[in-house]
């Protein structure tokens, strides 16, 4: 099918991809990209964006379906094939060498670079390219010195220098500050004017979708919901399409009188691992029997917040009070002893040790106090009984308490992680993405258990990306965006699309968020 004057530079027909665990990531996806347009792909986490992106870039092979470039059928076996055919990718987790200069990063692996690096010749070519698009970047700067936006620019330049006609951008604005975003949008416009097609893959950053794109395709659960011109949509309509109106399950949220305040966070701020501000001036309180739900897309500071409250991350300012006492300077062990527990977002290698038995893993929350330890010794008999109790009570499918935790499925492991915390009857549970990677049955089970915490007077701090989950479980909902709580809302008559819009940035007042 050759049409030299087809306006579609990229076409995808009937793409299907199923993963070994049975999950259908892409379900007959069709796409059309016009030459020189900026076409955004929008969708929640789990909608299939990453899979689609990886297939386009040659990192994955589809089970069914075809890809056409300029009307010609192409099959990619590796990213090199994709690069050679004119596709460039700008990754979310920058694939740049931080210690090297911008120049070195651009010429790395480039066919024009030759054996001995002819600095002047290559430099002139790159400078010419930058001039053409209006890019301003210091070629001799080290990448680690650059801001997130500049790093992204380097990736763009690198792709363009290799002759990319189509640029795939993975979450391009997720780490940019508002002033950088404007600069970034300018660059994108300049690039698209040169007839280069840009495909940004976006989750929730709705204001930018509007500012950037000509058209937008919305993915939900592996299917294309619709493709439309951006000018024909509103933030509200996009949020609706992304998230869907139906709630996927029903759970009874017990009406329990909230008890006294047990946790108070005051003006807390902390940095993330890259040295940038993760969250700023967060203030809220948690009460006995309350489930406080922090809703947001990963990368907006909620994980760093959870870590700070548990003691894994030192805040740079602000205070944390537990039952009236200032615990800001306390370490993890002290907080554990006080009854503050944590369910991390990952299991193997983070919450549990795969090579150790279930008993040893249960001990991780008991080794520092009686009755399981006495006079410096571990009472393994008691520990075994406790583990068996947890296995029984939480319906965990396991060969036995002595089995290695790596032998358990994700769902059963999560039940163990939750169980070892719940049996203690703690005061606070910080549940960070508690249902991540679980199947429906396990998900429902975990959620039910969290709800039961209310009756036990436990305060639960829930961090989740799943709006259904937040709305079903929480008494209080705090959507987080770019390190700040957009609002703190009572979960009464809340509308899902409202919250969805908040975590997507619809309510961010640019410039005033970073006060």
């Amino acid at each position, binding site marked *: 099918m050759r049409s030299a004057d087809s306006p579609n530079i990229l076409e995808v027909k009937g793409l299907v991809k199923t993963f070994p665990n049975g999950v259908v990531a892409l379900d007959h996806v069709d796409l059309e990209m016009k030459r020189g347009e900026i076409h955004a792909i929008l969708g929640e986490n789990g909608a299939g964006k990453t899979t689609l992106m990886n297939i386009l870039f040659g990192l994955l092979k589809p089970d069914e379906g075809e890809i056409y470039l300029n009307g010609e059928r192409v099959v990619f076996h590796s990213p090199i094939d994709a690069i050679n055919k004119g596709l460039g990718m700008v990754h979310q987790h920058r694939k740049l060498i931080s210690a090297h200069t911008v120049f070195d990063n651009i010429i790395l692996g480039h066919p024009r670079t030759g054996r001995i690096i002819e600095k002047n010749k290559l430099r002139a070519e790159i400078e010419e390219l930058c001039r053409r698009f209006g890019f301003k970047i210091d070629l001799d700067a080290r990448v680690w010195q650059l801001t997130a936006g500049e790093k992204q620019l380097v990736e763009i330049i690198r792709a363009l220098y290799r002759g990319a006609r189509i640029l795939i951008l993975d979450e391009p604005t997720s780490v940019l500050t508002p002033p950088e975003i404007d600069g970034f949008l300018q660059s994108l416009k300049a690039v698209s004017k040169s007839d280069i097609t840009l495909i940004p893959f976006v989750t929730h950053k709705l204001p930018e979708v509007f500012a950037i794109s000509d058209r937008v395709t919305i993915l939900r659960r592996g299917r294309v919901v619709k493709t439309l011109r951006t000018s024909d949509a509103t933030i509200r309509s996009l949020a609706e399409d992304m998230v869907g109106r139906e709630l996927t399950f029903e759970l009874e949220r017990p009406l329990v009188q909230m008890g006294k305040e047990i946790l108070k966070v005051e003006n807390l701020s902390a940095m993330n691992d890259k040295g940038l501000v993760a969250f700023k001036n967060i203030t809220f309180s948690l009460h006995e029997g309350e489930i406080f739900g922090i809703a947001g897309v990963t990368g907006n500071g909620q994980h760093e917040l959870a870590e700070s409250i548990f003691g894994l991350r030192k805040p740079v300012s602000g205070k944390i009070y537990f039952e009236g006492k200032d615990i800001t300077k306390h370490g993890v062990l002290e907080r*554990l002893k006080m009854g503050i527990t944590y369910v991390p977002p990952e299991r193997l290698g983070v919450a549990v*040790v795969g090579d150790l038995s279930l008993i040893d893993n249960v001990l991780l929350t008991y080794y520092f106090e009686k009755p399981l330890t006495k006079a410096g010794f571990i009472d393994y008999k008691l520990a075994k009984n406790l583990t068996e109790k947890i296995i029984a009570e939480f319906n965990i499918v396991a060969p036995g308490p002595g089995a290695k935790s790596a032998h358990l499925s994700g769902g059963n492991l999560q039940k163990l992680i939750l169980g070892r915390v719940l049996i203690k009857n703690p005061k606070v549970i910080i549940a960070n993405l508690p249902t991540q990677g679980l199947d429906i049955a396990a998900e429902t089970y975990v959620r039910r258990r969290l709800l039961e915490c209310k009756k036990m007077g436990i305060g639960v701090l829930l961090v989740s990306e799943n709006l259904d989950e937040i709305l079903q479980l929480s008494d209080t909902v705090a959507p987080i965006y770019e390190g700040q709580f957009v609002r703190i809302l009572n979960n009464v008559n809340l509308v899902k699309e409202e919250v969805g819009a908040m975590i997507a940035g619809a309510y961010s007042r640019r410039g005033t968020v970073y006060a």
Partner: protein
Amino acid sequence: MLSLRVPKIKLERIVIISQWRAIRISVYSIASAFLIFSLVLFYEGADPLQAFQNMFSFAFDPKLGLSLTIHRAIFIMFCTMAFIVPLRAGLWNIGMEGQFYMGTIGAFFIAYTFPNYQPEILIPLMIIGGSIAGAAYGAVTGVLRGRFNVNEVVVALMLNNIAFWIVYLLVVGGPWAGIAESSSRPLPNSAHAPYIFNIPFTFFLAIAIAVLLFFFLRMTVTGYKIRVLGHSETVARISGINQVTLFAFAMTVGGAIAGMAGYHMWAADPAFLMIPRPDAYKAIGDLTYWGIIIGLVCLLNPIPTIPASLFISSIITGSTVLVRRMRLPFGLDFLFLGIISITFAAFQFFYNYRLRVMRR
């Protein structure tokens, strides 16, 4: 057209390794080492089976090599346990040679300072002195790694060389020099290790420590924390386990055990009872590296080190017979150590991959 059916061998990555598989790998690697060693013997013109028979019969003959075998086995046991404890916490204790030298210094210092004490008091004091010296040396490495994140392998090696020269300083023409200027004065009689059933008492000490370590790691809270830390620093951090103190503790314990070897080596072997010439005590220092290999082969478990050390020690003792009686070149036991080391390293491959033969 004839087509050859070559079975396709697929490499499969293993996520977790079962205890049985790990044990099998250890056994196979030793067996392979034996095979390779046999090839060497064959090349040298000796009959491997005859050679092994000579080796082991000499090593275990009470009238010939048995006492040496037992003595060296005890030494290796100490070294192996000194390696195991830190590695359980995730630290590579390559510094046993230095900790052993410092243990020697500590023990001998006590002996020379209090030569008139009763053996019942002097000997425990010597052992304690050796342990403290070794522990302190181990602590240096542990602290530098815990606090400053300095690579413990390099530091340990440097310290090993330094300790060698400290012993040299004291012994060769130094304050401890004996009649022959390059070795030390002999130990006072009260320092000599007493024998029980013709076995130096340090044997029972080593076994006691092995058993103690086994229960320590299994049953105590600190042992538990060490094990968790050795498996995953992340899980340890999330569970409130303090890495810095545990690193220092583990290295100190390792150093202490290696330091005990400093008493045992010289005071429990009638052939020494003093610190010998530098090349002789260096040769013993080189033996400490057996601790690394045996520790790894025993999968960091203290109890199997008892039979494993005896086994290796019999090879060390037995190869002297090969050199003398069968006129084989010097250094065969050393060679066997080398062969086991490289075989074991190569067999680590099986920790990560499983070979699956696919029928097309």
